[in-house]
């Protein structure tokens, strides 16, 4: 852990040096604030991993309040072996100080041909039995979820197909 921190620190330090080196003329020429230089220049990771922020798209009270407050839930675990959430995967999220489970119903990531790619990472909150906390999903969800969620529903386990029942539209 310490090593990682150290590495990050040195990298950040290098970046800072670099930015200083390239923009020193601008600093001397125009009065730019030293605090405004951005160290993170890479785009955000589009994959759903741990600590990825998501958007709740159902009308559950908890989800609506979290989104309205501007504190969207963070993914803290992905229930698959790869650690990267794909469409239909179950994730554990931290939302308003609670831990809740949810299903990914739309991803920003590149999708297969003919499968829709969304502008945001969408999540529907569910409880342990697989029944959704809300009663409506207010964005379209991909049709492929019908198959995926049916396959994931086992005879004695959680029933994820209830999420499909509250969908307003398929795309």
């Amino acid at each position: 852990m310490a090593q990682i921190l150290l590495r990050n620190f040195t990298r950040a330090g290098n970046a800072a040096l670099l930015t200083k080196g390239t923009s020193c003329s601008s600093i001397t020429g125009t009065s730019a604030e030293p605090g405004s230089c951005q160290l993170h220049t890479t785009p955000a990771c589009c994959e759903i991993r741990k600590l990825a922020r998501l958007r709740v798209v159902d009308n559950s009270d908890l989800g609506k309040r979290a989104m309205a407050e501007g504190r969207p839930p963070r993914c803290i675990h992905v229930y698959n072996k790869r650690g990267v959430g794909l469409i239909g995967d179950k994730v554990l999220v931290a939302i308003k100080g609670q831990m809740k489970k949810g299903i990914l119903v739309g991803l920003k990531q590149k999708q297969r041909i003919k499968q829709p790619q969304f502008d945001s990472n969408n999540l529907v909150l569910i409880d342990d039995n697989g029944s959704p906390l809300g009663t409506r999903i207010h964005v379209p969800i991909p049709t492929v979820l019908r198959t995926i969620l049916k396959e994931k529903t086992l005879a004695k386990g959680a029933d994820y197909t209830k999420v499909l029942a509250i969908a307003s539209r398929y795309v």
Partner: protein
Amino acid sequence: MNINVRILTKSVSQQYAFKRIVTFSTKPTQQAAVAAVPQQQEVTGPSVRKPIVPAHYRFVYPEFLPDPKIEWRNAIREKLERLDMLDRRRQIELPEFYVGSILAVTSSDPHAAGKTSRFVGICIHRERCGLRARFILRNVIDHQGIEVVYELYDPTIQKVEVLRLEKRLDDSLFYLRDALPEFSTFDENMEAEPLEEGAPVPINDIKVVLRPRPWLERWERQNLLGVANIEQYIKDKHRKSAEKVQKPWEKFDLMKQYRATIPEEEQKEIFAEVHTELHTLELQRKRNKRKRTFVKPKHLA
């Protein structure tokens, strides 16, 4: 010998006179537009008759031109692919469309309730050649931006309709992702707007309004024509760094142009091969369409 030399010099001079056409770009180049007319008259000299391919074919059927990357060229594979493409075109109508046109694609979908799904959206990008040609449709449904990639020669596609045939000012419209949602919102039940036959494809010169930063790409570096308010959001530092990465000399780089495009002579060869077939298909479609429009009553009592 003398004639040969003359032909050689002529072809060489042509190569330098004509700007090569980028495969997927539909922007008219000034030199090509000026030189296109006299060039056709010159060709009538040799005695060998070849079918005259309309000049707009390279824009209507861009996927028939192979990828100019030299490592990927293979004459036999390209020929076989063209045959397959024609086979597919005999089965299904794949209409002319451009980046900026509004399409409706119906495809079979084993996951959907009715086993088919229809998606309406604006074509924001076209890429790849041959059987792998594909395009991206974008739409905003229920305030949610959605994009779908389709392969043009995908056998599961049942129908491709062009609802509004038009071009935009840019060659790809990825900036719609960072624009206000109303610029990529299209009604799903929208009806096709027919164009007059033989009329040129209209260019929609709408200027898109971008959201404030952060953006997905550095749009200020891409010399976009279809964006209205890019100046509003860029600061001096962005302008300076954009200037640094500009490569204004690239338009004079003949070798780069050569590697990035298919020469005009080769384009003619390719289209001469498929022209008759495509033309008969076009005529057939036209005839069928006319028949259908006269026979089928629209409103039943």
